[in-house]
């Protein structure tokens, strides 16, 4: 930046150090959790660990990976995330595309219908009662269909579509393409960046959601990863079967390394996807921020 002089003064030292501390504060808790997950229970109880595992044991991870319950929870989360994100993208882009056509009659009124949902909503109970009426309680659909269409994201996509050059569309229409063909063959390929960015937001949202799956999924075998994780963390016993002390038991007493191993396993998908998120997310944030 042209505004910087080349000299590096005391403030800069403080700044770099301060920001470094911010980074450490952010990362250290993860490191600590990882450490605990890798030690044997006995070593943990002795205490004194805080930076690295003094003795490594994969016992906790073995229990986690051998557990059927964790796998079914993982499956649930994957199903909901994939289906939910797909529906999110499809419906959002449908709305955004048509609503970006300012000359379409009725668009203004329909846009107002969408925007009103940002100001006011029915609330928790009426939504639950609706799902009940639709006989969707205790099905994945209740979770997948909650929040599929969010007007805020429609607006983001709509801005994007509106900024695409109109010439390609017009050329196609002259050549006799129908509106659907235009959408599928021209607009969508051009929209890959915004679809990728929003797709990632949606996916992360589904993966991390706790409340919505919790209220709609009653059967334990449908519980998502977050629900199971919460149970493991905050209850003293859980449905995890396996043994940590060489003794098989039905519902073992959940101990810290086991808890932390489950936490780490839950973080791994997010961590893997994070580089992608970084790339698209910052772009998405900039689009949103510029709007504001």
């Amino acid at each position: 930046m042209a505004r910087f002089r080349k000299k590096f003064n005391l403030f800069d030292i403080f700044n770099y150090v301060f920001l470094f501390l911010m980074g450490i504060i952010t990362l250290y808790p993860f490191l600590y959790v990882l450490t605990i997950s890798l030690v044997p229970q006995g070593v943990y109880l002795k205490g004194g660990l805080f930076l690295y595992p003094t003795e490594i044991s994969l016992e906790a991870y073995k229990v986690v990976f051998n557990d059927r319950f964790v796998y079914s929870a993982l499956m649930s989360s994957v199903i909901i995330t994939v289906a939910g994100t797909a529906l999110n993208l499809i419906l959002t882009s449908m709305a955004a595309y048509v609503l970006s056509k300012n000359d379409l009659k009725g668009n203004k009124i329909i846009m107002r219908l969408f925007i009103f949902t940002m100001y006011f909503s029915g609330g928790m109970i009426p939504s639950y009662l609706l799902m009940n009426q639709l006989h969707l309680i205790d099905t994945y659909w209740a979770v997948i269909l909650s929040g599929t269409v969010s007007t805020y994201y429609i607006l983001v996509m709509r801005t994007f579509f509106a900024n695409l050059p109109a010439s390609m569309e017009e050329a196609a229409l002259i050549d006799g393409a129908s509106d659907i063909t235009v959408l599928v063959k021209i607009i969508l390929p051009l929209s890959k960046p915004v679809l990728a960015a929003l797709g990632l937001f949606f996916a992360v949202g589904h993966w991390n959601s706790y409340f919505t799956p919790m209220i709609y999924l009653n059967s334990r075998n449908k519980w998502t990863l977050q629900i199971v994780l919460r149970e493991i963390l905050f209850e003293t016993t859980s449905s995890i079967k396996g043994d940590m002390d060489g003794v098989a038991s039905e519902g073992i007493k959940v101990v810290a390394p086991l808890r932390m191993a489950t936490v780490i396993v839950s973080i791994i998908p997010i961590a893997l996807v994070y580089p992608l998120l970084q790339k698209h997310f910052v772009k998405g944030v900039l689009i949103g921020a510029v709007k504001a």
Partner: protein
Amino acid sequence: MYLKSDILKGVTSMPALTSEKKLSTANGIYKTQKSNILKYIWKKRFLYLILSFPLLYILIFYYIPMYGTIISFLNYIPGQSIFESEWIGFKNFEMIFQSRLFIGALRNTLIISSYRLIFSFPVPIITALLLNEVFNKYYKKGIQTVIVFPHFVSWVIIGGIILSFLSASDGLVNQILVSLGHEKISFLTEPKYFRLILVFSGIWKEFGMSSVIYLAAVSSVDVSLYEAAIIDGANRWQQTRYITLPEIKETIVIIFILALSGILNAGLDQVLVLLNPMVSDVGETLDTYVYKVGLTSGKFSLSTAMGLFKSAVGFFLIITSNAFIKRINGKSLF
């Protein structure tokens, strides 16, 4: 060369299709106008078809529940149909305002939101300003990457992390306390710590992401303003104070107003994960209480009344804040 779209535009601006059409009683002209509308719809049928799906979605999943809030005026008993329930007017609302627990939840919500506004609002701004002063773009990007990460992690996971530090039996903080000769403290079940835990874990999770947003605003400041200031001999602090801050003031104010309008939202997932009976006096928020009364106790009418109260106040707040922002910005947010 005439583009098809120009021709289409010509068609749509014909008097017959615009809202200023003069309706004539002569059947011939009236029929032409009606069939022009139908022709238009048929011509654009795919667009309307495409729009119909998301439209149907919001009609079902947003507007029907909106109508459903009517049960807060009824004595709705699960199993009955809405139309059979008796009308009891504002009785539910009277009840909730006389309920100690509801008032407590309302109070907790306002206090927690206020703490968040006071403590967590400045942090991302300061971080963004500091990041802006970093020469080395790799260091800048690196720090950003690190501090943004917790935003993507779920509250359940963060709850687990909090547990590993603050657990009464073997949390790291208690290990340290014990080694220093103090007694263990059960942080998570102590009322006096609960709100602070909520607020500070919230800061830890979100300050990185928020600072990136402010950084975008800071980066969009015109560089030539700085160059002019440097020529006039301004040092970096003066540049920050007289250029950066005023330029991003608008952004800050807008975000603050929006945050203020969300004051009734104290965080649902976060509170639900950490809430326990020992701290419910200080920690029960509107959302968690609505959940408790509605879905755990099954008192649908009552909890819908609470929800309607929250939505109505929220609606009023966001309309008001939108008006404020309009005045500042010259245009509306949406």
